[in-house]
């Protein structure tokens, strides 16, 4: 059993209105030292797979099919073995 953490982010060149709005709010709250805000999604899930490679393969497949939008998003996968 594995725990997978998938991070899905807009590709750098694509406008991130959410990041822009949060950055604007932080500045107005005198957090001048915080900048270049970008917002992404973190998806946590459990993977029932025989080994690490099988788990990686399944999650990667899920990312390409559903979790990430290939047109405008990139994704990274982090796997942690769960001591059952």
């Amino acid at each position: 059993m594995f725990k997978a953490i998938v991070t899905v982010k807009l590709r750098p060149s694509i406008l991130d209105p959410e990041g822009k709005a949060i950055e604007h709010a932080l500045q107005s709250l005198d957090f001048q030292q915080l900048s270049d805000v970008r917002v992404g999604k973190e998806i946590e899930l459990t993977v029932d797979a025989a080994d690490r490679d099988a788990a990686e393969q399944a999650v990667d497949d899920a990312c390409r099919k559903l979790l990430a939008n290939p047109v405008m998003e990139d994704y990274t996968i982090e796997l942690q073995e769960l001591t059952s």
Partner: protein
Amino acid sequence: MSAPTFGVVVFPGSNCDHDAYHAVKHVLGEKATFLWHKDTDLQGVDVVVLPGGFSYGDYLRCGAISQFSSIMKEVVRHAERGGHVIGICNGFQVLTETGLLPGALLRNRSLKFVCKQVRLRVENAETDFTRRYEQGKVLQIPVAHGEGNFYTDSDTLRELEDNGRVVFRYVDENGEATEAANPNGSLNNIAGIVNSRGNVLGMMPHPERVVENLLGSDDGLGVFASLAESITGSVPALS
């Protein structure tokens, strides 16, 4: 006591400010003015209206950013002095973010924006916002939101229910608070609550959208009429 004045706050992205202003000024015939979010002067209004809309673009959390606008500090002081505040839809979300009301408005269970006529039962007709309604009356009022799923911890929920602070509840055509009648997944079908003192109300449905029969019903007028009456009728709260 002179006639009451309503102040409608305008945040960047508020889009129901004109609707609330129109309902109060042109339909109810009460004095109304706009309050710009960057100002710090409430112009001596009796009732502050936080209207619906997507204040500050609501990207992080609805109302998360507008709670810090300069006008909100004044609105909180106004509420603490016993002044009346009504937060509608996004306005309710702002009130929970500032802590004037408990809980939070999560994303609708369906994950979809929902806009339709719903039925609300008046759970407490003694508040300054509902005194013109009979207890238990079922109103037809529209909702239009993507994050209206009211949540709070179980202790606060019990406190709200036990002290008559749940003012409106989503019900079906038989007046029952069923799962099917719940448009967003709110706990106990809660649609609107007041603070312990009873001078601050937050509700997700839009009463300002049903104040004229031409648009389907005038069930929403009672909220604003109750407020106007509670100001002129009662001993001025702002001593």
